């Protein structure tokens, strides 16, 4: 089960991509209420949206992006194109999801 969910709507030569990524976006500044210890940072650092394997948007997120990040981009493409979203966290964890528009 991918942590990346996306919805693509095609309008002419533009694909409107909305995505929700399941990720805690833990800032490293919060304390665990039970132990009083800081919860280690765990958040998405890099994010790429590609159309037919060609990157269209390359971005960076930070701890100031809300938990379970929502993103919306408008990329060139048409129905039938392959959209891939990939991310990497500060802990080196990554996930990828591909969907056909």
């Amino acid at each position, binding site marked *: 089960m991918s942590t990346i969910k996306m919805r693509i709507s095609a309008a002419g030569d533009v694909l409107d991509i909305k995505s929700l990524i399941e990720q805690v976006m833990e800032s490293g500044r919060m304390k665990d209420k039970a132990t009083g210890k800081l919860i280690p940072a765990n958040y998405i650092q890099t994010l790429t949206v590609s159309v037919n394997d060609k*990157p269209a948007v390359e*971005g*960076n997120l930070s701890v100031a992006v809300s938990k379970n990040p*929502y993103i919306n981009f408008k990329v060139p493409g048409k129905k039938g194109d392959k959209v891939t979203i990939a991310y990497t966290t500060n802990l080196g964890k990554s996930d*990828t999801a591909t969907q056909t528009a």
Partner: protein
Amino acid sequence: MQLAWLTPRAVLAAAWPEKAYSTKGFDEALNDLFGASNPTESKDVTIKAPDIAENGAVVPVTIESAVAGTDNIAILVKGNPTPLVANFKFDGAQPFASTRIRMGKTDNVIGVAHAGGKLYMAEKQVKVTIGGCGG
């Protein structure tokens, strides 16, 4: 995705600009990211955010640039512990980005567009009732 490891390397190649994201300074963050600072206020950069956010942990923000040649958009909140929230580089995609951000208190959300080596910005105040950084 069981075939994730077959994804072309380039898809995962976006780098993490550590310095821009760890600095407490607004201009420093822009300098580290774009090699420029002091963005000019421009009505070609539009920012959409609520007037009042009841929950600072989830503030929807949309930034769009009509400045010709915009290749990057950054979102910043001056009063956050580190001002830079996110940045996006566009390769053919429309200079448009929408996401949800965290804000500790009432502050201005700033959208910065990078075009032709120059920076353009728009800002909007968001009143935060409950901050998004505490527990």
